[in-house]
């Protein structure tokens, strides 16, 4: 049985279920308790679990991430709420030097089972410091796992897996998708890490999208199908670990691929996936793997400018057409 649920509610349910199941799970962050976060994702949890397990912190991101690392090392499973993904820069030492490396540096003795949930996504008219998609930054660091839910269904299943994982996991939710609904099973389920989902089958081109870019890819695929181009859409669901097999298998079938992620294009997630496809499927490719990401500028405020910086279904469809018709023209 399943029902339509918002992404926000799905995250809330996942956390509540895990907190009921495991008394060592707790929440920590700014305005997580009575306020339930500015996005209201955590509403109601403090009423059920109390302020001992839903802990409001001061505005001290490095401090409370560091505290979560120490708590995780000593027998609890903290879920840290980082209000905006843009604040990752503030916590880099605690996340990347401490949480990510502790298990390795200790030779496998001190693991850090914590979840850092945060968000990403532009076009909320929030300007350059509240709109970034910084998943590449953390996916670059060995020792961290990175999940990117693309719907309420993924958000719930991936969150539950993250909470049970014995390693630090960073989850990026798209802040524009909190009210988006999707069918979510009534009964309990988990989504394993490292298993991509084929969201639409097709034979001519593979569109690989992360998070909200799955919707961009699906819309592009819909437009293309009207023209007789059949696009396969794949959601990797986790960047680390990455389900290379499913991506490679699809590209071997379609011979073409476009990768879409909302982080900046340069040195980003899309480049990594494109490189892996080149390494594993080069002789199956009929065209170069293309990348779509956020334009490589700080995210501007003005709607007239901001809308130019994000990948659109139209742009992806157009690129897919040129690839499928063999029209990609390289500058001499």
């Amino acid at each position, binding site marked *: 049985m399943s029902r339509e649920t918002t992404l926000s509610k799905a995250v809330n349910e996942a956390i509540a279920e895990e907190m009921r199941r495991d008394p060592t799970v707790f929440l920590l962050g700014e305005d997580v308790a009575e306020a339930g976060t500015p996005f209201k994702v955590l509403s109601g949890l403090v009423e059920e679990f109390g302020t001992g397990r839903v802990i409001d912190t001061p505005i001290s991101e490095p401090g*409370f991430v*560091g*505290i979560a*690392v120490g708590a995780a090392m000593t027998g609890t499973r903290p879920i840290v709420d980082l209000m905006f993904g843009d604040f990752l820069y503030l916590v880099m030492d605690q996340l990347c030097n401490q949480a990510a490396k502790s*298990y*390795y*540096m*200790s030779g496998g003795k001190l693991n850090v089972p914590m979840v850092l949930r945060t968000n990403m996504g532009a076009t909320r008219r929030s300007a350059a410091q509240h709109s970034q998609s910084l998943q590449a930054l953390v996916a670059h660091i060995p020792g961290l796992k990175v999940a990117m839910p693309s719907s309420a269904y993924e958000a719930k299943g991936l969150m539950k897996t993250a909470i049970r994982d014995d390693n630090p996991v960073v989850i990026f939710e798209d802040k524009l998708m909190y009210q988006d609904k999707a069918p979510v099973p009534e009964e309990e389920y988990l989504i394993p890490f490292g298993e991509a989902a084929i969201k639409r089958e097709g034979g001519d081109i593979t569109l690989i999208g992360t998070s909200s870019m799955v919707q961009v890819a699906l819309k592009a695929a819909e437009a293309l199908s009207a023209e007789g181009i059949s696009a396969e859409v794949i959601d990797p669901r986790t960047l680390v670990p990455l389900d290379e097999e499913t991506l490679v298998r699809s590209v071997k079938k379609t011979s073409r691929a476009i990768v879409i992620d909302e982080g900046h294009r340069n040195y980003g997630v899309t480049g990594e996936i494109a490189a892996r496809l080149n390494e594993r499927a080069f002789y199956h490719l009929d065209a170069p793997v293309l990348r779509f990401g956020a334009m490589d500028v700080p995210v501007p405020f003005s709607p007239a400018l901001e809308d130019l910086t994000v990948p659109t279904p139209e742009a992806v469809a157009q690129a897919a057409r040129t690839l499928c018709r063999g029209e990609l023209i390289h500058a001499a």
Partner: protein
Amino acid sequence: MAEAPTHNTEDYLRMYRQMVRIRAFEDTANQLYLSAKMPGLTHMYSGQEAVAVGICAALTDDDRITSTHRGHGHCVAKGGDLKTMFCELLGKAEGYCRGKGGSMHIADQSHGNLGANAIVGGSMGIATGAALTAKLRETGHVAVCFFGDGATAQGLLYEVMNMAALWRLPVIYACENNGYSEYTRTEEIAAGSLTARAEAFGIEAHRVDGQDVLAVNALARDLVERARRGEGPFFVELETYRYHGHHVGDINRDYYRSKDEEAEWKRVRDPIVNFGTWLEAEGIVSADELVAIGEAVKDEAAQAVAHAEAAEYPPGSEVDMHVYKGVDHALAYI
């Protein structure tokens, strides 16, 4: 020496012996460096022994500590084994971290040492988090966060002290003020008073002679017991001195620290000599017994380092192990 609390002879001797073990470990490690047998650099704890020993003697194995780049003393004092430590310093498989951490990351989970840290101030959150676990899980355990005077310049300290005070966490912030951070005097980097900074958060703060192991231990035992009862957090500034350079390679240091100053601390305030003298004067041990302890520890250190030198390096196949718990080899996973 401070007034002796209600110790028995065994406690005194354990503390004395632990200080001697730290000194012997460091002297041996320094030799390893000078004879080019040790990869990398290391920071010597010699001179500061009474701090680690006085505090750790007040803790149980279940109480946690976090340590620093100058961390060998904390590791020994918390129960660490010299052989396993030397193996780690030499990057051998039998080391505490299977050779993956080295001097600056020694962690000994079996005795509650959550690890040294090569980021100055980097473990302040971890210690505070360990105290949060103790509070949430009602374990009655205490966490001690060791850090240097230089680390008091990190903003993280003030973030976590604020939260520790708000949430009344059982954590003790132990600031080892050895007068220098690298090649800079503390006066040049620290405005005002360090204890006053903690007091501004409503945290009870103390200053103590870090060369007097009895004074350190008496204060630590009191604060640890009170922290267990929920009266924490606490802050302690321990006045101390490092005998070596900032690290083993810091040999010519006249430009920031005079030889006279170093000689004076060693002559008047050596924690081991002074405690030994006191033990003798109180009739607790004889001079011969102290010499015997010194000899036994020297043997222990010599055997430990010989073992470590002969020990095996980890096989190359371990290079991508221990990246993720539950994953044997990370490269086949990510």
